[in-house]
């Protein structure tokens, strides 16, 4: 029995541990787009902040793959799934056969198609370790930062970089921060706390247009910045299963984590 797992974060690792609770013998291959040992994505903000380091960020101990008896293929992206042949195709052209396939590809940041975005030089998303490393390189005490999105990712980013930059402005279409999580009263408490720390907010404001160092908000205000962080939401990676299994905004699974395609499984998507 060969299990192939796409994805090296919480879902993929959870899949490995779940399989090994029941099947100690079967072969497991875990394929990851990123080359790194499994790490905790939520900790990238703590990394910039200084509360953790590259070593402590590891989601499981160094010997994890070996202890679990699974082969780790890092730095390879899966480009296609061939369910009739029960194979996956990688970006280097090679093919890996599977008996059971787990798709733990998570999501990627949504970059809204705003006019002039391509003229901005220092723009970053904030999802992966590489994002955090390159963002940190760009920070310095005289920089002004504009963060698009007052959700969890945008605010954790703000928390992480505040002490390293001159100013932060966070803009969001919604009328309150953390709009998908908190009500008005709760959001108000968080916003006040962050404002006391020195973070500025522009709520109920979208960006109509970008210039290289300026954002033209829907409210009419112009906000100057040196660094732009786009934290405007994520989109689940459903591309690989398009046409193969049922997808809507995310991959549809039942309570056994089965997709509608035979022998293909995935993890829960939350909205």
């Amino acid at each position, binding site marked *: 029995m060969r299990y192939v797992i796409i994805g090296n974060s919480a879902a993929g690792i*959870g899949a490995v541990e779940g399989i090994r609770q029941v099947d100690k013998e079967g072969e497991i291959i875990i394929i990851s787009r990123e080359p790194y040992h499994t790490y*905790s994505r*939520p*900790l990238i903000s*703590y990394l910039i902040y200084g*509360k*953790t380091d590259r070593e*402590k*960020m*590891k*989601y*499981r101990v160094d010997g994890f793959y070996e202890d679990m008896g699974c082969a780790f293929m890092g730095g390879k992206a899966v480009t296609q799934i061939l369910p009739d042949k029960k194979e996956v195709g990688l970006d280097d052209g090679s093919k890996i056969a599977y008996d059971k396939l787990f798709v733990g590809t998570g999501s990627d940041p949504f970059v809204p198609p705003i006019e002039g975005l391509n003229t901005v030089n220092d723009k970053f998303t904030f999802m992966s370790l590489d994002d955090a490393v390159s963002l940190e390189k760009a920070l310095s005490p005289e920089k002004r930062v504009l963060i698009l999105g007052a959700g969890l990712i945008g605010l954790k980013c703000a928390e992480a970089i505040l002490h390293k930059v001159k100013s932060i402005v966070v803009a969001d279409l919604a009328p309150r921060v953390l709009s998908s999580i908190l009500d008005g009263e709760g959001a108000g408490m968080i916003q006040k706390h962050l404002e006391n720390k020195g973070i500025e907010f522009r709520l109920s404001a979208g960006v109509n247009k970008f210039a290289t160092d300026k954002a033209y908000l829907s409210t009419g205000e112009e906000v100057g910045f040196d660094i732009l962080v786009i934290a405007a939401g994520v989109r689940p990676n459903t591309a690989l299963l398009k046409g193969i299994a049922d997808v809507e905004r995310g991959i549809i699974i039942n309570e056994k984590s089965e997709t509608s395609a035979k022998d293909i499984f995935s993890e829960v998507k939350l909205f």
Partner: protein
Amino acid sequence: MKKVYVNEKWCLGCHLCEYYCAFAGTNEKDMARALKDIKINPRIRIEEKDGVSFAVSCRHCDEPLCVKGCITGALTRKDGVITINKDKCVSCYTCILCCPFGAIAPSEQGAVQKCELCVKSAAGTPACVKGCPNGAIVFEERG
């Protein structure tokens, strides 16, 4: 694996288990010196209502929700004991929200804390078991 079990029939709500737990967490030999003028933050806590009292500590669940929820991998199972790696913990408190027993709590040292069956403490075998005056807390295997 042996775990700490509490029988509410004999629990007197005297709270001494809390103090012995706190004492075991220090490196002192004398309890008076260790706990004088200190507000204790023990890993076992008495809950009481309507004449029933009961000491609550980590159940070292077979399916630990705290471990599943931990974003850093600081919570793991080692030799059967659910243990916290204090260096990895970033105090996100997800585990505190997950635990159905309320057995994890913040600590003064930054990371979170919970009962680890005294494997790391000065006591060796669980201090709450030894300190209970009425035999309400036992350390045994229950299949």
